[in-house]
């Protein structure tokens, strides 16, 4: 087990490297001269050349990459020119808000998705199955940013039960309860699509497992049907469900971009959108690298969870 974890830990190094290469390549593909883009079209050639030198843009692309990478490894992600502060500080501050939001959403979608999946599989072709499957289909098809607006209209504007935006109340806010109130709508909205995806997959994984011979053995032993469903079948189905939850973590982290914009949640997603419209490339770069790295780590966790569950993959 420990050997497996170590092996997996090492195996993410090339993935992380590849990730930085892709981000770097995308960023160097910017059409035109970045220095001109930053300084504006009225900049003097001397200023452009100086900035190019300062940014290290006169070096070869490979050299540039390694300079960029080693800076990053030392915690230097550059300076955001629109906010005039170090990128890393800004990103880390925003990232904690994003983690709270998407972490809650991930817990919600895992819980509900798995439960709905098991229920529908257990009652295949029954009414519960048909109704829930249809609701799940709606959940998958609904644009989350629109659902967010509808929820704001209903719960914040009409009923005035919950706040419409932000993470804490502006006056007299703070504390867990305040956070929970602000978190409820956005995390729910963010979890809807992933709930649908996980529910669908859980259903089909459960149906697949329930046809296996070892389920028949369980029944032949006289194991009660609940236990067949929740212990025998679910444990075996989890082996296929866990990687999907890992992938959904990516969708939730990405979907946070919309939800943070709709609910004005002070997270990385909203920061990225603002940074893009202000052409603050370094900020975009830093945000993307950190969120993507977090996603890679999360998938690593999913892999380890799976190996812990399934003794057959240990080696």
């Amino acid at each position: 087990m420990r050997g497996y974890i170590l092996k997996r830990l090492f195996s993410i190094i090339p993935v992380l490297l590849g990730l930085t290469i892709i981000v770097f390549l995308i960023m160097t593909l910017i059409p035109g001269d970045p220095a001109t883009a930053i300084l504006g079209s009225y900049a003097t050639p001397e200023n452009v050349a100086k900035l190019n030198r300062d940014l290290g843009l006169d070096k070869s692309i490979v050299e540039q990459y390694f300079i960029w990478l080693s800076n990053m490894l030392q915690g230097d992600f550059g300076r955001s020119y629109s906010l005039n502060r170090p990128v890393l500080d800004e990103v880390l501050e925003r990232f904690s808000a994003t983690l709270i939001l998407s972490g809650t959403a991930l817990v919600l979608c895992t819980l509900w998705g798995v439960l709905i999946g098991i229920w529908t599989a257990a009652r295949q072709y029954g009414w519960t199955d048909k109704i829930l499957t249809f609701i799940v289909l709606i959940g998958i098809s609904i644009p989350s940013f629109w659902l967010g607006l509808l929820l704001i209209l209903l719960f914040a504007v009409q009923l005035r039960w919950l706040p419409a935006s932000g993470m804490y109340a502006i006056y007299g806010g703070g504390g867990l309860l305040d956070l929970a109130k602000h978190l409820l709508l956005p995390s729910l909205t963010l979890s809807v699509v992933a709930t649908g995806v996980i529910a669908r997959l859980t259903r089909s994984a459960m149906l697949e497992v329930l046809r296996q011979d070892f389920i028949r053995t369980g029944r032949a032993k006289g194991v009660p049907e609940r236990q067949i469903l929740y212990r025998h079948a679910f444990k075996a189905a989890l082996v296929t469900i866990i990687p999907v939850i890992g992938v959904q973590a990516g969708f939730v982290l990405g979907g946070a971009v919309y939800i943070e914009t709709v609910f004005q949640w002070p997270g990385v997603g909203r920061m990225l959108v603002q940074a893009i419209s202000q052409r603050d490339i370094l900020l975009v770069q830093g945000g993307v690298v950190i969120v993507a790295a977090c996603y890679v780590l999360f998938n690593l966790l999913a892999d380890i969870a799976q190996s812990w569950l399934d003794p057959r993959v240990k080696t």
Partner: protein
Amino acid sequence: MNMEALKSALALLFRNRLAGFGAVVLSVVVLVVLAAPLLPIHHPDLTNPANRLLRPFSTNHLLGTDHLGRDLLSRLIWGTRLSLVVGISASIIAAAVGAFIGIVAGFFGGRTDNLIMRGVDMLMAFPYILLALAIVAVLGPGLINALYAVAVVNIPFFARNIRGVTVGIAHREFVDAARLSGMGSWRIIWSEILPNVLPVIVIAISTTVGWMILETAGLSFLGLGSQPPQADLGSMLGEGRKLLINAPHASVVPGVMIFVIVMSVNLLGDGVRDALDPRLRSGALARPAPVTRIDRETVPEKIESNALLDVQNLHTHFEVGERVYKAAGGVDLRVDPGECLGIIGESGSGKSVTALSLLGLVASPPGVIKAGSVRLDGKDLLSTNFETLRSIRGSRISYIFQDPLATLHPLYTIGDQMIEAIRCHRPVSKKEAMTKAIQLLEKVQIPNPKARIGSYPHEMSGGMRQRVGIAMALANEPEIIIADEPTTALDVTVQAQILALLSDLRRQRDLALIFITHDFGVVAQLCDRVAVMYAGKIVEVGPTEEILAHPAHPYTMRLIDCVPELGGGKRKLSAIAGLPPAVDRLPDGCAFAPRCDRAEEDCRLGTLATTPAGTSRSVRCLHPSLEQI
């Protein structure tokens, strides 16, 4: 795909009502959108400050107006047009590039494959939307750039899927044949590979186009897609959002449209996938119920007997679509306490189905018990409620299955599985159950049971696994054990050990044993009586020694002839010519007649009853060999 298959796929698609509904809604939307320039609607960009923020159902403006007084209906139709064009273009670009990459990787294999798939995996390590954002960040906001971003982000998905399929095809005979005929790689890809991966590409597009429409709308919503005055559904929603409180209709209307489009695309996509994926046809993914469906018109009358288990006229059918497979077509069996009954027959003769029917373990759907009774101590098991049946399963009657690797749960230790078997029927503590489990493992001669109890099934050898299966069957001291070919998956020496073990245990515990096999040698070694099954019916039954010495049914004779004799026997080893009949199209008369060298005209007429032969035997044959009985 030929025309025939295409037709049946289309028929299947439209049998799925939801998919049909999606198709209709989608076609209506597409028709309206295509006809946009001809429709009597306002110009979408015509501003009119006097008519700002009119509510829906205002005169002249069915869906109201936005903050610049532009007609929302017209903007909705034109916006939908734009969103659809962008979403569909993105999926076509992604599919084309992705399929190209996938085919190249899959067809050429080796280092090309390795290199390409590494890159694809790297791209997939990104959260999707984030990568799209990075691309838009570089290219700058704009609808075309958003289209590229969404397309690029989806390429890995297509590449991976198509590669998988291509690898499967690249080494098939027809591709090899094309290679040998001197065709170049690219021509082979064009003429042999592409037509075969096309259905997969279609499935992949149909499942992703909804997402792509949604994602481009999302980017526009964030202000990174279409720029004013041009508006797609996403940017309409984004503009509407700013007026959420004063004019909610401005954001509700475009959102409903996105939802309707994505929903109907998804419904249609599910339908397409179901229609093209053969695995999903004919309810192959149906979940077996906890107990076989029972659909009997009458229950056979009880016959007084002192048998422990008495099976009468058992009919178990498999109903697959229009076809009915009569796997068990009227089986009568009797097992006395402590007796070992062998059931023998070729594969597909219905032995296992019969055995599983006794406790309602036949998978259903498609299995259904149509007639008969199974009486344990005179009480019909097919009439009891589920809870009673469950309390009998594994406690009074237990099973040993054929392949213990597939029939033991792969993710629980054998100890856990045995403890569970014990605690299902008895209120004992975990510790007591553990002690009992260790004793049982000792009983079945597993060396060092205390250590082995923590093993997983995959860590044991086949023989050891089957011993665990036997130990588990013994867990609650049953009266009857049903062993369904327990030694078939094992090699010969292990087979002999397991048989000896079963034989010993049976005698020690006075167990009744129903032993299912296709090997008369095993029957001779183990069973008191034997029942020979053919095409779902018992064709001969009687004491093992008598039947071995003087088989009455021609089929029994042939089966016995199949057993090789050790030490240079005098018999000639012979296979039985022909195949058993398909049980959905049984011939009239005797099912064995087509393969029988004693068959006469009357064998092919009516139905055959069993006739007693001697005191303890019966045979279902019109011309049995009865000389010596």
